[in-house]
């Protein structure tokens, strides 16, 4: 299975993960600082900043875009519970 490297900048840890893994699954296991609530793309608690490899994540859905807008999210912010890793290298940190 294709793998990607996700770096959690706040704790200085990089995790090699299979493609398709959602960021929140990794963040939770590795103890990074991305907090979460509903895990269903609704509450906006898990907004994170993607500092590198934005294009290596799945495209945001219409629903995710709406939640990001409602939460006044900045450029290159994503919901960790929705963004799936595709390939390459990605760096994230809590928004």
């Amino acid at each position, binding site marked *: 299975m294709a793998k990607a490297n996700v770096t959690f900048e*706040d*704790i*200085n*840890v990089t995790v090699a993960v299979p493609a398709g893994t959602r960021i929140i699954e*990794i963040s939770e296991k590795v*103890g990074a600082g991305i907090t979460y609530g509903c895990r269903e793309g609704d509450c906006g608690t898990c907004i994170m900043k993607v500092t590198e490899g934005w294009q290596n994540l799945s495209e945001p859905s219409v629903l995710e875009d709406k939640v990001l807008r409602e939460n006044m999210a900045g450029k290159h912010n994503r919901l960790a519970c929705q963004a799936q890793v595709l390939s390459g290298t990605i760096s994230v940190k809590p928004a």
Partner: protein
Amino acid sequence: MADTPRSAALYPETAGAVALSERVYWIGAFDPDLRTFDIILKTANGTTYNAYLIRGSEGVAVIDTVKEGFADDFFARLEAVADYSDIKVIVLNHLEPDHTGALPELMRRAPQAQLFISQKAQTMLKALLKEDTLSFTAVLTGDKVSLGDRTLEFLHTPYLHWPDTQCTYLPEEKMLFSGDVFGCHFCDTRLFNDLAGDFRFSFEYYYAHIMRPFKDYVIRALELIEPLQPVLIAPTHGPILRDRPMRYIQRYHDLSQPSLTLEKQPHEKTLLIFFISSYGNTRRMAEAVYAGAMSVTGVRVSLYDLEGGEVAPFIDLIEYADGLLFGTPTINGDAVKPIWDLLSSLTVINLKNKLGGVFGSYGWTGEAVRLVEDRLRGLKLRVPVQGLRVKLIPTEDELADCTRFGQELAEELLGLRKSKIIDFADLA
């Protein structure tokens, strides 16, 4: 709320608007009986909900409204100085309900008025009014609206006290309508700072609870406000500052500086270790963590036993520390109360991106460390090293682990800790 309202003699029905100048009026409301605001704030003097009306040659502007229950007072004062048909502009500097309670009714009475809010207020307005078809103009610093011979200029001052907050400046009169900035909960019908009773404590208390978590934003806002050299500051709560208003700007400068000073080298980092211990086991862990952290040059480490301290002075220390470690035993599946008392008191300061870590001894199940780690993440601290748990009395090896834990976190503070690469399959 007090059981009985204040006497009519002390707080008479002052139905009229109060002139700030020939063209500017206070049209707010007095709430002398309020004792608790927003759950977190006490007030010994009630509060005022300040709203203002500005008359230009080509129309009237209303700046902010009042809490819903005080709408009658607001409308009575407004009607004393203007007709609803005169109102061209409504400005909301802050959307909290104590300033927008009368907005829906005002918009019904003055449907022609154009509503101006900050960029960040847009989604909040919809959530407050539950009306998707509402028409408004979102503004940023530098945007202006003309009332003919009077102009309103907007200043984007986010987080003072909500993300949406802004100030509105009236250059022709050098008046600043500052929203919650420079406000306080103090009800005095004499309204102006040179006439009202002594509200110094209320001013400082309000800053400490509302503005302190956002000191960086206060400093940025002051950079916009100070060059204006306003001759009058009209906040949404408490006295209107017409006597030497620059003193209050200077006071905000002073309050936004560290309350305690520490003589340290420019590149030195500070690490505070707080612990509490019932049988001395968590204490031994704390001392080992302390020794490990102290072995790293360039980190100033301090150790505090929460049993011997009070929360308030620790908050002052924590505000400007770079890293915070907490040692707690587990009792009945939870961290102990002094730890939670401290952690639940930190919302008045900005903790974002400080380093955090947790350790503790336990007898049965040891939940406290994970619970406190989650709390630290919720407070936006970084928790880069998994917490240390020791069952009952720490062995020499376990104390050595504590020493390494302290050393690793101190190195992390200095950016010396090596990055880790892990395979997802190896994570529990």
